[in-house]
Each structure stands twice: as structure tokens, then as C-alpha cells.
């Protein structure tokens, strides 16, 4: 083994020291000082926020604690101290602060992301997406559900005009929004309206139109006729937020033409969109005495969404609605593909 020359040793030592310091300086993506999440949940959050960093260069950190003082000042100072979105990257950063004692949540936005995530949007995702989950005591799920909306908006920004202010603007200038977290306060029953005017349709298409109508009205009532009994039972345990309902309506408005496919027994049906509409998942229906009802339970078990919100099946899972996809090829990871022409 060649010996290191004496003159190089200090340099190597310095490099090792610098690397060590850099590693020590690396703050975690999720610092749960208040102990609101399990280790598994923190890892899952860190994984998704890592994707956000990798795909969109948005450095999204989460800090929780108790009695943090003025949460607005704390967030601005911590944003600077953690050098979120530090130079060398694009300077794009987000910091979510939860003060469990004060029961407040704040999402601080870096100056160069204010165009993509204006205060009004941040307040909307906090009040209409995050807080309903927090009310049910599901902190990590609330944060993850919000991350979905953040990713969607980042994708749209990238696809349209791109991100504003690519230059480093020295962190945050106080942009973002603060909301009452309402941790464990229960789910707002205001969105569980009654089912008046929402009935199962005589065709799957009619039922789907009724479903979109209910969502547009932010009606999260689980006992609507448009759902199968199993779906109703599942929805009673679910947190359905206003933002999820808005997002669903908005997303499917952009989907192209759909087609309805019926099963051989005439009891099942699928409404599916074109293969290029990767973010428009199919809907499954089961016929009962009143008409066609949405089978969200099977959809929930079989369909997943990737990092870019494109849908795919759970790989190798039994699919009672497979009859509707026989003209497509489902790859090993469950993604639908066009069959090769022979």
C-alpha cells in the first residue's frame, strides 16, 4: 500500500474533518421533538420529502415541539438556522412547524416559492387538508396528505412556467400561514352532510356524475346511496377532507373521454380513462337493487399512486375487475401499458 506523503496528510485530515462536520450539520427532514409520530411514520415522511427534494429540489422539513414561543418568529428563525433550501441547491424550501402545546401549525415558505405556494394556498391546505387529519389524531397522515397537494402544485409549476425566482433569496421572508392545529379535537362533522339529492344512477356514468356532484358540494357523508355497503362502512372510519374533495373534482375535470366496460356477469362495471391519462384512475362499480354503486373498497385495496401521482395496480393482487383491462398489459410493478402490436 503506498504511503501517504507527509505534506498531504494535513489536507486529508482536513477533508475528513470537513466531511464529518458536514454530516453532523445535516439536520433530519423530520425532527419530532414533541413525539407526535412513530419511528415508522417519521421514516415514511422523510422518504416522501426526500422524493420532493430529489424530483423538485424542494427542501421540505418538519419540526415539532412544545412551547416554542411565537410560532411565526420561531419558524422564520429556524428556517434561517437550518439553512433550508441552502445555496448550492435552488434555495427552494418549506418548513412545517407544529407546536403541540400551543396547538398551532405553521408552514413557512421560502421567498422563491411564494409564487407557487402563496399564503392563501398554504392556509387552504392547512385548514382544509391537514387540520381535519390532526383532529382525528393522525398527524403523519395529515402531513403526508398535504405533501400530496404540494407535489401536485410543484408538478403544475414545473409543467407551466417553471418555478419563479430561481436565485437564492436568503431563505424565508415570513411567507406562509399559521392555523390552529386542533390536534385530537375530532373530525369536523360539517362536511358529513346528508345524502339529499344524491342517489345511485341507472348507469355507472350516472352514479359517477352523482359522486362528482357530492364531492363538488364537499359532501363527505358515508351513507350515500352511491356507495356499496362495504364502501359505506369504510368511509365511516375515513377522514375525507374538503381539499381532497376539491382536488378530486379538479383532477377529473382535466381527464379526457372515459369508457364504460361491463363484467361478464353484468354485476360489475368499470369506468376507465385513456392510457395517457396517467393521473386519472379508473372507477369500479357494483350493481345492487337501487342501481350502480361505487366500490371504493376494492379501489382502495387495488389502486395506488406513484410519486408523480400516476396510478397503478397493487402488483400481483387478485382483481375482480380485471375483465376491464384485458386489452392492456399490466407490468410487473402494476402499471398499465399498451399491448404491443403483433
Amino acid at each position, binding site marked *: 500500500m503506498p504511503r501517504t506523503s507527509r505534506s498531504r496528510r494535513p489536507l486529508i485530515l482536513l477533508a475528513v474533518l470537513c466531511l464529518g462536520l458536514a454530516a453532523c450539520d445535516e439536520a433530519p427532514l423530520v425532527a419530532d421533538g414533541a413525539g407526535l409520530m412513530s419511528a415508522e411514520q417519521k421514516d415514511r415522511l422523510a422518504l416522501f420529502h426526500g422524493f420532493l427534494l430529489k424530483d423538485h429540489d424542494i427542501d421540505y422539513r418538519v419540526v415539532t415541539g412544545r412551547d416554542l414561543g411565537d410560532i411565526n418568529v420561531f419558524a422564520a428563525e429556524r428556517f434561517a438556522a437550518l439553512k433550508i433550501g441552502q445555496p448550492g441547491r435552488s434555495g427552494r424550501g418549506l418548513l412545517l412547524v407544529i407546536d403541540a402545546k400551543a396547538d398551532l401549525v405553521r408552514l413557512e415558505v421560502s421567498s422563491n416559492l411564494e409564487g407557487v405556494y402563496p399564503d392563501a394556498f398554504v*392556509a*387552504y391546505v392547512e385548514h382544509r387538508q391537514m387540520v381535519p387529519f390532526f383532529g382525528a389524531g393522525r398527524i403523519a397522515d395529515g402531513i403526508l396528505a398535504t405533501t400530496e397537494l404540494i407535489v401536485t402544485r410543484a408538478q403544475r409549476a414545473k409543467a407551466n412556467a417553471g418555478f419563479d425566482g430561481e436565485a437564492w433569496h436568503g431563505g424565508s421572508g*415570513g411567507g406562509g400561514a399559521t392555523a*390552529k392545529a386542533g390536534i385530537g379535537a375530532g373530525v369536523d362533522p360539517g362536511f358529513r352532510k346528508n345524502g339529499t339529492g344524491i342517489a345511485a344512477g341507472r348507469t355507472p356514468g350516472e352514479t359517477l356524475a352523482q359522486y362528482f356532484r357530492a364531492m363538488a358540494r364537499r359532501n363527505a357523508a358515508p351513507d350515500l346511496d352511491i356507495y356499496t355497503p362495504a364502501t359505506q362502512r369504510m368511509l365511516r372510519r375515513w377522514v375525507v377532507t374538503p381539499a381532497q374533495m376539491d382536488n378530486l373534482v379538479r383532477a377529473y375535470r382535466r381527464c379526457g373521454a372515459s369508457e364504460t366496460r361491463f363484467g361478464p356477469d353484468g354485476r360489475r362495471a368499470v369506468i376507465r380513462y385513456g392510457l395517457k391519462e396517467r393521473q386519472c384512475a379508473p372507477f369500479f362499480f357494483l350493481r345492487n337493487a337501487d342501481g350502480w354503486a361505487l366500490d371504493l373498497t376494492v379501489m382502495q385495496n387495488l389502486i395506488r399512486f406513484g410519486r408523480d401521482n400516476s396510478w397503478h395496480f397493487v402488483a400481483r393482487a387478485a382483481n375482480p375487475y380485471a375483465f376491464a383491462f384485458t386489452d392492456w398489459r399490466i407490468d410487473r410493478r402494476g402499471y398499465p401499458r399498451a399491448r404491443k402490436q403483433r
Partner: protein
Amino acid sequence: MSSEDRIRALENEGILSTDQARLLSESFESFEAAETRPEGTPWPRRAPYIAAAVAVGAVLAYLIFPWGGDPVSDGAIQDVTRSLNQPGGYGEMNKSVSGILGVLVLLIVPLIAWVWLHNNLVSKEERVFEAWAQTESNFQRRADLIPVLIETVSRYLRHETETLQAVTGKRSEGTAALGKAIDDLAAAQKATTELLKGKGPGLLDEDATLRDLLAAQTRVGSGISAIVAIAEQYPELRSSDQFLQLQAQLEGTENRINVARMRFNAAVKEYNGAIRRMPGSLVARAGNFRRKAYFQSDAEARRAPDFKIP
């Protein structure tokens, strides 16, 4: 729609009186005037390098025209042994080089230090100006939101009043309260206008003016809070997405003002400390660097307006 157009529209609809509209419009002019400084009157100019130039000139003069005359100008044969190093000593040549180097060290080092200190003060002062510009732009941002807030609340109240009058024949109390809140807000904006009028960078040198400006801006914040409080009495308005968005923008602006103010005060503290400490104080005096006022909150300002949803 620009803020100016919005104010005109509110005036035409009778939501704002002529006086209220004029006062709110003037406040925009004052921000614009403060942001765009007329050519020829930029941030303070100084003659920083006069002393440095004199010092450099002296050093150059010494090097080009050495004092004591030329020892060989009278035609005598030069005794080079005097210039050469002798055993155990130094010759004339080395002595003169040492002298020049000594003078260089004595003059150049302080000169470099002077220039470094001066540039350091300039950087710190620029940070103060930059922080102030950020604070001002946030005031502007808040001023832009005022007509939007008035429009949103007054339109809802008008609808509410019409419904109430149709059912009970009574007039909504909210309308009268809104009129008073707009009066207070317009007066606070007017105070801001007058404080900013004709003030350039000199504004930052005056403690009293900055204190008054903060008080005026605090009154603006209170005026906005009063209007938000009126809106919160109407659950339908309070829970609407449109009002939630507006409230978020107001809160966000308020927070930006606080952050900008904190950073401005930190920049002022660093700058003021630098111009008072030795040897920076010598450079500051020669370069006309003046102490900057803090944008400090009094007891009233410390109570930040609260627009939170209950």
C-alpha cells in the same frame, strides 16, 4: 384591477366617501414616492477616499522624489563600499530599502485597514437600507390589501343589509361599524403618508419619525383588525374560502412586516455597533456614517394585530 381602480370603484358605488377614497389613494402615492427616489438624490453619498487618496499620494511622492538629494549629482566618484554590506553590518542600499519598506508598512497597512473598515461600514449600511426597503415593500403589500378587504366585507354586508331590511326593516349594525373602521384606517394611512412625504433616506436617521411611523402602521393594523372583527360576526362570510384566503394574505403580510422589522433592527444594531466601536468610529466620523434609528415597537406595537380564525 389595480388598488387605485378598486378604490375608485368603491367610491363610485358609495362604499367609500370622497374623503376616505382620497386618503387611501394618497397612501399609495406616498409608498411609490418613498420607493422611487428622484435621480440625483440617491442614498447618502460620501467622499470616502479623500483621506486615502492623500495618503497614497504621499507614499508615491516619497517613492518617486526621495528626500535628501542625489549623492552623485556633483560628479564625485561614488564610494560604492558605503552601499555594500560590510561584515557584521548593513550597507547604505539596504538601509534605504529598509526605510522605504518601513514607510510603506507605516502608511499602506493603515491605509488598507482604513479602506477595509470603510467598505465594511458601507456593506453594513447597505444591509440596513435593504432591510428597510423590504419593510417598506411589505407596508405597500398591506396597503394593496386594504381595498380588497373593504370590498369583500362591504359587499357581503350590503347583501346582508338588503336581506335584513326586507325581512325586519332594520339596518345592519355592521355597516355603521364598517364605516367607522374605514374612517380610522384612512386616518392612519394619512398619518403614514405625511410621515413618508418628502422623506428620503434621512428617514432612517430620525428616531422620532420612525417611532411615529410605527405607531401609524400599528393603527393601520388595528383598523384592519377592526374590519376583520366585523366580518367574523358573520359565520357564512367567516367560513367562506374567499375570506379565508384574504385572511391568510393579511396574516401573511403582517408576519412579513414583523420579520422584516426584526431583520431591519438586527441590521441597524450591527451597523450602529460598528460605527461606535474603535477604530470603526474614526472611519465613520470621517465618512459621515450616521447612526440609524431603530424601528422599535412601543407597548402598542408589541401587541401584533390578531386576524386568527377563532
